[in-house]
């Protein structure tokens, strides 16, 4: 089994699916000859040709609109935005068309497209290259919103996203693209798009997170463990549709929950999870739900980005507040 990092998991899944299904095409800026600015599509154009790995002119609205057209006519486009901060022009096509193609045509036309983008902060990138914008998409009915947080889950979830009959927003936490390697078999096994992943069992407190914050959250769990506190860590992975049951089961056991995400606090997807806990799990909770999130300010340029992003200390402190309450 090859040892690969997260971005290699993306490349492997794309190559696997392109080989298996001739309808799969990759399109975006610099994805072909250059292999993508992060190297996610490296080697694909040599293997599958310029007609299936398409270097596009520079326009994200165009890329998204082409993907809608391709998908509606039987192709399986995987459209890339070079950075999540350049997805905004895609939103018209995604919200007005991709997300509702099936609904508005009563199933006559569909949109099995994937819109993938490197996501989030922490790599000293220039302005507009570091945003966590998943909540813009979780509020659009008809989309799936997925964030991979390990090499294996990148591979398995991207396979599932491409095979899914509906549009999928697929985010890749660029900060952990090359964080570590793990064994990933290129076996074409997709992971389910409707479950959370319990990364660590625990019984004292539930830590719920996704994306690059999985790293800090696991480190916080280690720090808590050193003090004898056993935290359960859940990677939500697919934010929409949400597998609330897995989170609820955990909270029934721990009675305390901390939600961690790097997107801004207000309107962040943590608010949705907290609301569901209030609706369905209030009597299971022994403490108020805690949220550790980015602040409600534009993502600062890189000198301050690590002060913006949740860190281990903030997660541990929130967990301790939850443990001290009730």
């Amino acid at each position, binding site marked *: 089994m090859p040892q690969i990092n997260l971005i290699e998991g993306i490349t492997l899944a794309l190559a696997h699916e392109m080989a298996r299904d001739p309808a799969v095409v990759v399109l975006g800026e610099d994805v072909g000859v250059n292999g993508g600015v992060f190297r996610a599509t490296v080697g694909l154009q040599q293997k599958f040709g310029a007609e299936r790995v398409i270097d596009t*002119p520079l326009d994200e609205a165009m890329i998204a609109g082409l993907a809608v057209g391709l998908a509606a006519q039987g192709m399986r486009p995987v459209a890339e935005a070079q950075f999540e901060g350049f997805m905004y022009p895609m939103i018209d096509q995604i919200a007005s068309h991709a997300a509702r193609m099936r609904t508005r045509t009563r199933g006559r036309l569909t949109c099995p497209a994937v819109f993938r983008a490197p996501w989030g902060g922490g790599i000293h990138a*220039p*302005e507009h290259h570091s945003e966590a914008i998943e909540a813009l998409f979780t509020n659009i009915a008809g989309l799936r919103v997925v964030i991979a947080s390990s090499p294996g889950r990148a591979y398995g979830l991207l396979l599932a996203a491409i095979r899914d009959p509906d549009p999928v927003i697929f985010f890749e936490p660029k900060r952990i693209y090359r964080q570590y390697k793990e064994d990933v078999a290129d076996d074409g096994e997709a992971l389910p798009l409707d479950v959370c992943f319990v990364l660590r069992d625990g019984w004292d407190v539930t830590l719920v997170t996704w994306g690059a914050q999985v790293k800090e959250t696991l480190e916080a769990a280690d720090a808590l463990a050193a003090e004898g506190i056993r935290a359960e860590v859940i990677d939500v992975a697919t934010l929409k549709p949400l597998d609330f049951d897995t989170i609820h089961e955990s909270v029934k056991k721990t009675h305390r929950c901390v939600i961690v995400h790097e997107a801004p606090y207000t309107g962040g997807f943590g608010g949705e999870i907290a609301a569901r806990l209030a609706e369905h799990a209030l009597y299971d909770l022994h403490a108020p739900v805690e949220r550790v999130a980015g602040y409600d300010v*534009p993502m600062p340029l890189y000198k301050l980005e690590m002060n913006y992003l949740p860190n281990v200390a903030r997660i541990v402190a929130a967990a301790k507040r939850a443990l001290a309450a009730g």
Partner: protein
Amino acid sequence: MSIAASFEIEYLQYLDESGTLLGEDAPAFARDVRALVDAYKLMCFTRVFDGKAIALQRTGKLGTYASCLGMEATYVAIGSALTEDDVFAPFYRDYGAQFQRGVKPREVLLYWGGDERGNDFSGPAHDFAWCVPIATQCLHAAGAALAFKIRKEPRVALATVGDGGTSKGDFYAAINAGGAFALPLVVVVVNNQYAISIPRAQQTAAKTLAQKGIAAGIESVQVDGNDLVAMHVALDHAIKRARHGHGASLIEAVTYRLSDHTTADDARRYRSEDEVTAAWEREPIKRLRAYLQGMNAWTDAEEKDWLAECARRVDAEIDAYLETRAPPVTAMFDHTYAELPLDLERQRADALATAKG
């Protein structure tokens, strides 16, 4: 059959690759030795700055940096064509224009060094800040031009955009607005032949980028962007027209990006050494120097002294950049709104407490 419309795109060049003045109809500017020497010196300064900024990035003292190597004539010409009252809407490698507007090299470095204070630069307070989301700045310039028109001010808004940027809807919308409203707008397409790895020929099937302006109904011209004289003449004409109420124009400046796209890029992946070597033959500084020396307006000794002076000035700016203390953690809350809302005050306190540990 009759012709519904027809058009031509003029190509403007006065100084050829070797620095020889072409044709009989040389503009007066081509004989304005003082202006030419000033422009030449600025082009050299810009290049010295650029080289040192790249070196700073390579030694870990600067974030990703977008070089302007090879585009100095285009940008310096823009800087000298605008007045202080005009509005400049740059994209991200327009330093040669911005230095003339008072932007300090240390401010460029602050921006790429991850500090918003770079955007609060010493240039005209009404100028727009660097603009990374491709082509969006074109519409800001159009909006600014609309404001000038409404208020009947004799001011011009100028936006720059790359060859890649001309594929984007924002660009088309901006030049269309420029035509539809007859705005005091000039859009300069800095055609440096690449949008990261995508060569110009793959960006559009259009023969020139200038002709996109024809569809918008605005005056459009293609210019040798490595020829300072031609750039000056084209800009002077477009800006005068705009200022006197004759509407918007488009200038396609044909140049070449001699550097990588940014310091995060490796251009060897997608273009040949031969192509780059050939492009060096057409670069703007060499040709203007040859022209000036042909007129005995610039000596080797002056060249040597000036380059040393540029290095000294840039080094002083780099020192100032390196000595700038990081912004405090709370800076990310400043300027989110005119006044900090109560709701954000709690978050600010949390950020401060976390930073203090």
